């Protein structure tokens, strides 16, 4: 773990706190799913928290974020209130999308969090358009577009990269390469090999690879990528290597994966890894981190209480917000 910039203790500890919040939030989501409080598909981000937290810490409030269906981590790291996030999962009117979107469709326009898109690759063209709007309006915004390795094989990957590069749009294409598109390993689905970031070369998009298990590495890589785009140099392609600790969704018993592979990645769990870093560098004490864990726990429990107590959307909401 390399620290190139001088970050305050508060900042560093907040990264820890946010990763822990996402982890705890989703562990409890899994339980709420088993209890039937959460319906539909539930795709957990557990194992990938360093990416959302590292990336969001490098963005400005005016930057746009679009992502895929595994979107809880991105939303929470972008500052969405866990109560509002949990209420959305519970299908309550107090949810971020007023109960209309669910797990795969979190939106928070007030934070320029422009949504979770549940069709693989579908968010890439939308991100290009947001970046186009920023460029045409002369705004210094950057759009960060998360996608998984499954999206590499959608035509939209090519279409979006090509157009963003042709038009030099301020977009960071952020690949969260967790090696699996649902249950299919990248080696069986993507012909371009493992160093996917090199695909950027073909589109003349500068690219880099970063360690998605290291929150500080992700932050630094994102800072460089975003700065490139913000300076008007066009898109940047960032690949973070990571691993999904759970199945694709709650319905997935993960029978297609090698246990040794799983264990090798779990050793690199971003949260204990960062905890060790904080302790070894005397940035925080174990007491302080335990206190944070307690607070995070309380915050998640409060979110569940809030979601549980919130009302369902009223019947008339069925026909609301179809048209502006």
């Amino acid at each position, binding site marked *: 773990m390399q620290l190139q910039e001088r970050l305050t203790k508060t900042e560093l500890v907040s990264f820890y706190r946010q990763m822990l919040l996402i982890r705890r939030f989703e562990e409890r989501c899994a339980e709420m799913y088993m209890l039937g409080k959460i319906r539909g598909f539930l795709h957990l981000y557990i194992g990938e928290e360093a990416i959302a937290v590292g990336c969001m810490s490098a963005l400005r409030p005016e930057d746009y974020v679009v992502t895929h269906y595994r979107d809880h981590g991105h939303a929470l790291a972008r500052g969405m209130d866990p109560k509002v996030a949990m209420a959305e999962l519970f299908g309550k009117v107090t949810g*971020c999308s007023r109960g209309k979107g669910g797990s795969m469709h979190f939106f928070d326009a007030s934070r320029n969090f422009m949504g979770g898109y549940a069709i693989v690759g579908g968010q890439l063209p939308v991100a290009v358009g947001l970046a186009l709007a920023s460029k045409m309006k002369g705004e210094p915004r950057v759009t960060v577009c998360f996608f998984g390795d499954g999206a590499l094989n959608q035509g939209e990957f090519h279409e979006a990269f090509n157009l963003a590069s042709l038009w030099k749009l301020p977009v960071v294409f952020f690949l969260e390469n967790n090696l699996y598109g649902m249950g299919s390993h990248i080696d069986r689905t993507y012909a371009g090999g493992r160093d996917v970031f090199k695909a950027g070369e073909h589109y003349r998009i500068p690219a880099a690879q970063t360690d998605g298990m290291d929150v500080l590495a992700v932050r630094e890589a994102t800072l460089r990528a975003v700065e490139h785009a913000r300076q008007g140099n066009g898109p940047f392609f960032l690949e973070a290597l990571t691993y999904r600790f759970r199945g694709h969704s709650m319905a997935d018993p993960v029978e297609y994966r090698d246990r040794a592979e799983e264990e090798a990645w779990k050793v690199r769990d971003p949260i204990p890894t960062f905890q060790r870093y904080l302790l070894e560098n005397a940035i925080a004490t174990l007491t302080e981190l335990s206190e944070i864990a307690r607070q995070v726990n309380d915050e998640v429990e409060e979110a569940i209480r809030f979601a549980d107590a919130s009302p369902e959307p009223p019947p008339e909401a069925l026909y609301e917000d179809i048209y502006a």
Partner: protein
Amino acid sequence: MPDLTLREAIRKGLQEALDNDPRVFIMGEDVGAYGGAYAVTKGFLRQYGPERIRDTPISESVIVGAGVGAAMGGMRPIVEIMTINFSLLAMDQIVNHAAKLRYMSGGQLMVPLLIRTVTGGGAGLAATHSQSLEGWYASVPGLKVVFPSTPADALGLLRTCLKDPNTIIYCEHALLYGVRGPVPDTYYEVPLGRAEVKRPGTDVTLISYGRGVHLCLQAATELARRGVQAEVIDLRSLRPLDLETPLASLRKTHRALIVEEAWPMAGIGPYLGLRLHQEAFDDLDAPIAHLCGADTPAPYARNLERLSLPDVPAILKTVAEAFGL
């Protein structure tokens, strides 16, 4: 009141929008240097420059998706999809994203995107280039679909569409670009969801949109020679769909024929027919008739294509068979 072609009317509407609203820009395949596949945007590139008249690669998904994103980002994009057949490549962006973002975000987002596209058959382009898919899009909540048949409506509807904060599919029939008609000099708009009686009559109602309206008007002229007064209704917009105008007509004529180029199943015609039956059953002297495209892919051969599309003789034949008129 000058006469304009439908193409000129659309050009006028687009130019007005580009002149009056800096958020408006046009993007699509060959809309710039080439001048548009159907010459609608000819000369625009020189007039407005490449920032606002954007030639894109042949990449329908990112064209529409970039339109969705740009609209969410505060611009007023007009996207041209060269023909509605190619919109299938952008179906995900249109149906899953443009149409749904407002709903799924609980009202947080707006997608004020205008998608212009060319539709219809009759030009010998065979099965992949002759489809009338407007009814598919009209079936999607969250989208609006308009389809002008006259230059005046084309301009009036375009003005309204560009003030509407939703995603709209604006359909242009390939064979109507040269149709000429009076267009008022004074500013006017045509509201969405309001059909128009293009010719009043008392004996039978002919309901259509786009090119079908012209066929119905010709048929009505022929029917008048036989002493039958046909009322011709132009739907103009398929979603929102005006039921009141056809219903008022039905209550007068007691007979209706719906004419469209689309296939017989699962289109706007069958839906409209069902609704009219439900609402006006007691007023009907006969079941509502439906004349549509053949239930086949569009053939290339001239004779087969002619057989596959509604025409004036087919309208007259259907009116005679269904209503004895």
